């Protein structure tokens, strides 16, 4: 009897135990519809890829990073100047954080405009919106960790804005800061949130989100559904494995090339150590994905009737966020899967608003 080579036997042994052929059979049976909007299916996978990069590079940063107002800046400085490839790890972590959030925005708006949130994918949408919010929280908490001047004052301003919130403001600000001011206590709690609490929440949400996507399969946009109804022919599709996985892989490699290119050619700056007794430097800005909200606050009139303008703007953003999260239940055309033009217009307005406000802020300053 001819014996199989060792590696085949090892794989067979593993397959017997892990039953991995069942998984790959499932993946072969899962079909991905192919149509003119299929391109947008790639963005969720890219965001997932970037999250994995964050976990890997973040864990590496933890090996040298020392939290604390006396040690944080020094440890990052040591990391980028002395540790072999330390600058690269940090640069990749920072760039990847920004790319991840940019891709999440693209992913969210594309699923919004393709109306993928319709029944039965309401929970997929809600977990997706929460994933974006938690990722923005990761960005906000991570930004402070190197304890440099820009981050220190940006965090002061950002947490002070939370303090403007009616009724709850003082309380929220104090919980965020771990006291009345941005101090070492703030750094400690941001560190805890950044490296464990938020990643754990993110991983849970991500698991649920991906599970739901597998469960329900890819949605077909309304115009594709309509064509199916008219012609009576189902839209063509390819198996998830191996056909679609190859497209995903190409997208991932593209992301990786862009990411490493940026990280090497535009290495992330460290700046100056934060000094609570130095005046604020010019050019304090939140990270770009908060800029549209910040610009709105700036342009809002100081008083609107009996209310303070800033309070009104913050409450407005909270309501808008809630509205956005519950869109599947508000778009009344969604259960029948019909053509809800109103929400398409709303989505385009939201994109335009964010884009214009961000541009105005960077151009006008």
């Amino acid at each position, binding site marked *: 009897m001819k014996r199989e080579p060792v590696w085949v036997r090892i794989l067979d042994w593993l397959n017997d135990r892990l039953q991995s052929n069942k998984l790959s059979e499932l993946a072969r049976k899962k079909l991905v519809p192919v149509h003119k909007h299929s391109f947008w299916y790639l963005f969720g996978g890219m965001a997932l890829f970037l999250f994995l990069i964050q976990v890997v590079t973040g864990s590496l940063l933890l090996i040298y990073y020392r939290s604390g107002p006396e040690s944080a800046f020094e440890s990052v400085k040591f990391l980028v100047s002395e540790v072999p490839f330390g600058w690269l790890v940090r640069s990749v972590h920072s760039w990847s954080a920004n790319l991840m959030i940019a891709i999440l925005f693209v992913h969210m708006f594309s699923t919004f405009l393709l109306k993928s949130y319709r029944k039965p994918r309401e929970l997929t949408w809600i977990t997706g919106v929460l994933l974006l919010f938690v990722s923005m929280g990761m960005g906000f908490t991570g930004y402070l960790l190197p304890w440099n001047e820009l981050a220190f*004052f940006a965090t002061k301003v950002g947490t*002070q804005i939370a303090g403007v919130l009616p009724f709850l403001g003082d309380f929220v600000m104090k919980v965020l800061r771990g*006291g009345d001011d941005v*101090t070492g206590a703030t750094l400690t709690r941001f560190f805890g949130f950044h490296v464990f609490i938020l990643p754990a929440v993110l991983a849970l949400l991500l698991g649920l989100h991906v599970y739901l996507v597998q469960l329900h399969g890819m949605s077909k946009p309304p115009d594709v559904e309509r064509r199916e109804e008219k012609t009576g022919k189902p839209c063509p599709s390819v198996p998830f494995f191996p056909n679609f996985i190859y497209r995903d892989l190409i997208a991932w490699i593209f992301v990786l090339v862009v990411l490493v290119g940026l990280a090497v050619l535009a290495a992330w700056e460290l700046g100056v150590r934060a000094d609570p007794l130095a005046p604020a430097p010019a050019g304090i800005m939140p990270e770009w994905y908060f800029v549209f909200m910040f610009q709105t606050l700036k342009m809002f009139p100081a008083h609107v009737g009996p209310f303070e303008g800033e309070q009104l703007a913050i409450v407005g953003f909270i309501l808008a966020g809630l509205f956005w999260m519950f869109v599947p239940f508000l778009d009344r055309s969604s259960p029948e899967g019909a053509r809800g033009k109103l929400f398409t217009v709303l989505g385009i307005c939201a994109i335009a608003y964010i884009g214009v406000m961000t541009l105005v802020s960077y151009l006008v300053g």
Partner: protein
Amino acid sequence: MEKDKVSRRQFLNALLGTGLFAGLLGSVYAAVRYVIPPDVPEASPSMVVAARVGELNPGTAKIFRFGAKPGLLLRLPDGSYRAFSAICTHLDCTVQYRSDMAHIWCACHDGHYDLNGVNISGPPPRPLDKFGVIIKGEEIFVSREG
């Protein structure tokens, strides 16, 4: 008999359910309280030494530590002193004296204050808190009440 069994199941479910729910509620309460920082009595002196006589030339300023917070000590061109809280009343940044503008400026959102600490342009909604200045011997003291 059948009915008896069902109610026993129901009893157990209720008992376990209530127990688990109460445990969960208690844990969440404790966790939320844990995240809220306790009040640490801040060592906030009512008076500090901000500078030494002769340290500042007329028309310059320095930031000094008042407890945990920054203060701004200003020497006017006529040689007299003024002191304010250096915390911008807009969103908490630390202000500075700009000799080229001859007034107080906040870089964060371009807020301006005059030499009395009064907000004159930009987003700050109120004047800076004012402190008192007392010169005793070689030292310049700043006190809370302005």
